């Protein structure tokens, strides 16, 4: 047998030789390393362990050039097979280091409870567990809502403990600093609406109504909706990550032991900031969107700028902006709630912070769309 294998293709080999009637010797040779091509323990089993009357397995390793954990996993597997077939595993012939590591690896028996049972749950079990989880999530949400309402009550009575500096800072971060992205998105949305409308309205020679279409949809719907979605992705995620990191770092515990309620100190300023900033951003988005529509109207449909302006004024009423503003305020509260809720629920690991941020965005957007639908139906009933 050739013990020296080419360096380019490291290879470990074994040969089983007969020593006595009831003893077989495994001769290990070559490179028993992770990169090498290696025989499996099952081969040894097939060659000798299955034979009757074999009582002992010994080793010979004088030709073994190199070894690492690959050899150990092979030997552990072989030892297990030997134990099953009640064959003695005689490790005396193995290198000294290998013997010691084998002793170390088998010194403490496997902790039976440590290995997680990965049994497949039946559909009913899964359904039941989901129902329980959902009840718990709803319960947690209600508790959180209650705490926020109480904190808000304290704030109105001037007794909430929070730092006004924080409030201003969050307002700046979530308001002024969101202007560029809100400008871009709402301008493009206005532009897109105008394009879509122009193609249809041109067939009736009614291009001028592009102004009505863009004005009304921006003011009543799209301004608030686009601002809400931008803020959910931008600020809701940031809130969840900030609060989540504070939970992981025990900073919220430190607040509690100082007698400060995290809901008052952390959640309230964030909610107040978004309650004020989202409606303002929403008005801004309405105007920029209308500007985007005007660019299409004037540039492509050859309407006069003054004519477009007059048409927009005559189509829009103050109530249309109020409708959008109410939506914006509601969205602001919901985004802040979703972000803070997921942040405060954050587990104590780095990946939990990421999950909290993701969940905050998803929750925020779902709540925005659902509340938008509800508000639209209410407006319809009220004839607004």
């Amino acid at each position, binding site marked *: 047998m050739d013990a020296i294998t080419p360096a380019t293709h490291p290879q470990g080999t074994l040969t089983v030789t007969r020593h006595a009637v009831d003893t077989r010797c495994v001769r290990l040779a070559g490179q028993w390393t992770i990169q090498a091509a290696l025989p499996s323990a099952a081969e040894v089993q097939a060659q000798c362990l299955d034979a009757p009357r074999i009582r002992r397995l010994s080793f010979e390793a004088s030709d073994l050039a190199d070894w690492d954990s690959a050899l150990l996993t092979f030997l552990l597997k072989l030892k297990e097979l030997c134990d099953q077939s009640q064959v003695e595993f005689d490790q005396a012939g193995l290198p000294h280091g290998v013997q010691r590591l084998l002793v170390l690896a088998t010194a403490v028996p496997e902790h039976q409870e440590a290995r997680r049972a990965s049994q497949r749950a039946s559909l009913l079990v899964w359904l039941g567990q989901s129902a329980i989880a959902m009840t718990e999530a709803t319960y947690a949400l209600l508790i959180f809502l209650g705490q926020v309402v109480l904190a808000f009550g304290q704030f109105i009575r001037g007794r909430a403990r929070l730092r006004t500096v924080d409030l201003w800072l969050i307002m700046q971060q979530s308001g002024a600093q969101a202007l560029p992205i809100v400008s871009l998105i709402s301008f493009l949305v206005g532009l897109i609406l105008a394009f879509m409308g122009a193609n249809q309205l041109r067939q009736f020679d009614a291009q001028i109504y592009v102004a009505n279409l863009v004005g009304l949809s921006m003011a009543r719907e799209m301004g608030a909706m686009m601002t809400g979605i931008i803020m959910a992705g931008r600020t809701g995620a940031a809130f969840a990550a900030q609060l989540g*990191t504070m939970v992981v770092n*025990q900073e919220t*515990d430190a607040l509690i032991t100082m007698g*400060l309620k995290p809901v008052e100190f952390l959640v309230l300023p964030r909610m107040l900031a978004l309650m004020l900033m989202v409606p303002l951003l929403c008005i801004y988005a309405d105007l920029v969107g209308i500007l985007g529509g005007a660019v299409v109207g004037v540039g492509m449909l050859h309407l006069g700028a003054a004519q477009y302006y007059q048409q927009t004024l005559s189509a829009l009423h103050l109530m249309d902006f109020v409708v959008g503003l109410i939506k914006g305020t509601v969205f602001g509260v919901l985004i802040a709630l979703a972000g803070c809720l997921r942040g405060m629920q954050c587990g104590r690991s780095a990946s939990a912070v990421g999950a909290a941020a993701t969940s905050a965005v998803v929750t925020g957007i779902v709540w925005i769309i659902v509340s938008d639908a509800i508000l639209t139906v209410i407006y319809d009933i009220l004839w607004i």
Partner: protein
Amino acid sequence: MPAERPQDAHIFVHNLTMAYGSLVIQRELTFSVQRGDIFIIMGGSGCGKSTLLRHLVGLQAPAQGDVLYDGQSLWQVESDERERLMRRFGVLYQSAALWSSMTLGENIALPLEQYTDLSPSRIGELVALKLALVGLAGFEDYYPSELSGGMQKRAGLARAMALDPDILFFDEPSAGLDPISSRRLDDLILELRDSLGATIVMVTHELASILTIGTNSVFLDADSKTMIAQGDPKKLLAESHDPKVRQFLTRGDPHA
């Protein structure tokens, strides 16, 4: 043991059982801490030392039992009452838990702003004093992330002392510190106890700290899920016959 009744002790933990849901961490803990003690909560990893601390400082409600501070219950009262009691504590968390969005000065000033009517300049003086006490004079405008681990721990200590608490709680103060910094922190703790007259409750498994500064202790065991020894750690080392306690206090060296 002093002659007074145990429930009159400075801190009296009575029949405390701690659990996460149905998983019991420790059951039926009863011990008392006297004023001026440096009380050590010790035991192997995962036996519930930090959880016990969370129960003592009011962060986690016990499954059963109560904690009394000078005879006043912490858990059998309304949350307002509990918060008033909690204001007498200073807590140094394992990760220091400084508020990362605030400077050191703001961190220490926050409790003062919230609970006193002091003018900003008076608060500034107090903040400077607390920072000077922990050897961080002049670091008011630094953010926690700009400091080393040892400095963060000391700043956390300064914040814990902001309201001149009666009782200081430490969760593994020397975890992650080099031997010299950890020794200096021990000296600082001792100094603060002597000069401020505070009582100190400390979770640690730093043997050197336990044996040098501890005056009383409780030993929690993860297997039997309860306390298996209490008393002065030096005495425990000399007199205890419990193999687990002896092993812990001698680092498993049978000849010690």
